[in-house]
Every structure is written in structure tokens, then in C-alpha cells.
């Protein structure tokens, strides 16, 4: 089979931008990551990264509005799992993306800024891009062999 340039997603989940849907996103990610060949620990981590990205869409891109949409797409290609979180809200200001210094974190009494840091710790790449269809946060994890999916 020839490989298409832009593979179509294996699985797509579209939910409203209410935090009550975050658990569905998390669970779906965890299951899909397992099917893609992630071991149990890694699947939990990837689910966390996608939860964080989706939480940020709700809190930042949509500023808490509950009536917008979040689309989560799972793509599998040549040894990697790619998860795209898509919104049509305010774009990310890349300069606002924080570098977390955990040493100073506690004394600064901050209680935010950990999400993007976690995403970066877990995934191999984290990128944000604007497209005509919305903002896309793309999380990529390289996989070893295995996985049930074709």
C-alpha cells in the first residue's frame, strides 16, 4: 500500500467545551494509546498530556465558554502516535508558554503553568499551529513495535 501524504485519523472525538467532557477525552485517549501499542504507563501519560491540552483549550482558547467545540484526532503513522487537539478559539501566544522552574514554583505561590510543562515531559514533540480550520495543538509520541492497529 502506498502511504498517503496526510493520513486520515484513526479515531475522532468531538465534544463541547465543558470540563465535564474532559474525562471522556482522557479515557478515549488512554484506550486508543493502548491500541496503538503504548504500554499501560505510557498510555496513562499520553492521556494526561491530551487532558492538559484540552483543558487549556477550554480555559485559554475559549476562556471558559462551554458552548464551543473541541475535536481530538488520533493519527497513526510510521512508528508514531499523533494526537491533534483542534479548537476555533483564540490562538496560543507562544511567548506566553511558560518555562516552569520547579525550584521557584512553590515560593511563587503559583498554581498554574504545569500543563504545558507536563505535555513537554511526556510527548516527543508538542507544537501549536494555526490553520484555516482552527488552532491545532499537535502531540507526537514515537512508539516501539507492537500495537493492535493496522
Amino acid at each position, binding site marked *: 500500500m502506498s502511504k498517503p501524504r496526510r493520513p486520515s485519523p484513526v479515531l475522532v472525538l468531538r465534544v463541547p467545551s465543558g470540563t465535564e467532557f*474532559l474525562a471522556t477525552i482522557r479515557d478515549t485517549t488512554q484506550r486508543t494509546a493502548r491500541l496503538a501499542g503504548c504500554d499501560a*504507563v505510557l498510555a496513562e501519560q499520553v492521556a*494526561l498530556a491530551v487532558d*492538559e491540552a484540552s*483543558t487549556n483549550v477550554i480555559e485559554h482558547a475559549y476562556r471558559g465558554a462551554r458552548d464551543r467545540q473541541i475535536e481530538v484526532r488520533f493519527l497513526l503513522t510510521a512508528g508514531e502516535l499523533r494526537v491533534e487537539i483542534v479548537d476555533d478559539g483564540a490562538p496560543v501566544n507562544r511567548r506566553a508558554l511558560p518555562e516552569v522552574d520547579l525550584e521557584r514554583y*512553590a515560593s511563587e505561590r503559583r498554581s498554574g503553568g504545569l500543563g504545558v510543562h507536563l505535555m513537554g515531559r511526556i510527548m516527543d514533540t508538542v507544537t501549536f499551529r494555526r490553520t484555516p480550520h482552527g488552532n491545532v495543538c499537535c502531540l507526537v509520541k514515537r512508539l516501539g513495535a507492537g500495537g493492535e492497529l493496522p
Partner: protein
Amino acid sequence: MLLYPSGFINAHTVRVFEEALQEAIGSGRFRIVLSGQGLRYVASAGLGALMGVIEEVRGNGGDIRIAELNETVLNIFEMLGFNHLYRIFQSEQEAVLSFRDGAGGGRTDA
């Protein structure tokens, strides 16, 4: 004071967890053990809630100590280096007893 958060702590449920922390602090109980038996998952919102109160707790001579985390949750704590910021114990009992030898602090426990 023992806290037993259960299920998922994510952006949807974190309010409940924050309220439990605030209630402990508000009633002057600054020696807090967070026992994770029933805890399946914590997102950064939950970790942020801890960070949001830890200075006040320690400033009052107390501490938040953590026990009985499952593998997934422990893994998240470690990924963020929270095992250097908080004392984490295997069992609830160890965490409770740890308050016997001197009160709070704990951040520099190696």
C-alpha cells in the same frame, strides 16, 4: 488531618479537592496527610491546587504529606519533580507517624 480524594482530579473536579484543602486550613489543621488509595488520576489542576496552599500550610508549621499513590499517580508526581517538593510515603500510617518527629517543613527531606 487525613484527606482521601477519590477518582479523578482534573479541571472539572478540582474545585472539590480545593475546598477540602481550604476546609482543613480554615479550621487550623495544618498537618495534612493526603491518602491516595481511591485516587485514580491527577491532572495538573490537582497538583496546582496543592502548590496553591503549600506555602501557607508550611508557614503555619504544618505540611502536606502524601501516601498510598498508585503507580500512575506516583509517576505524574515524579515527572514534575513533586517527589522533591513533597514527602511521599508508601503507607498512610508512615505518613501520619512522620508528623511525630517534629512538625512541618519536610521540603528538604532527602
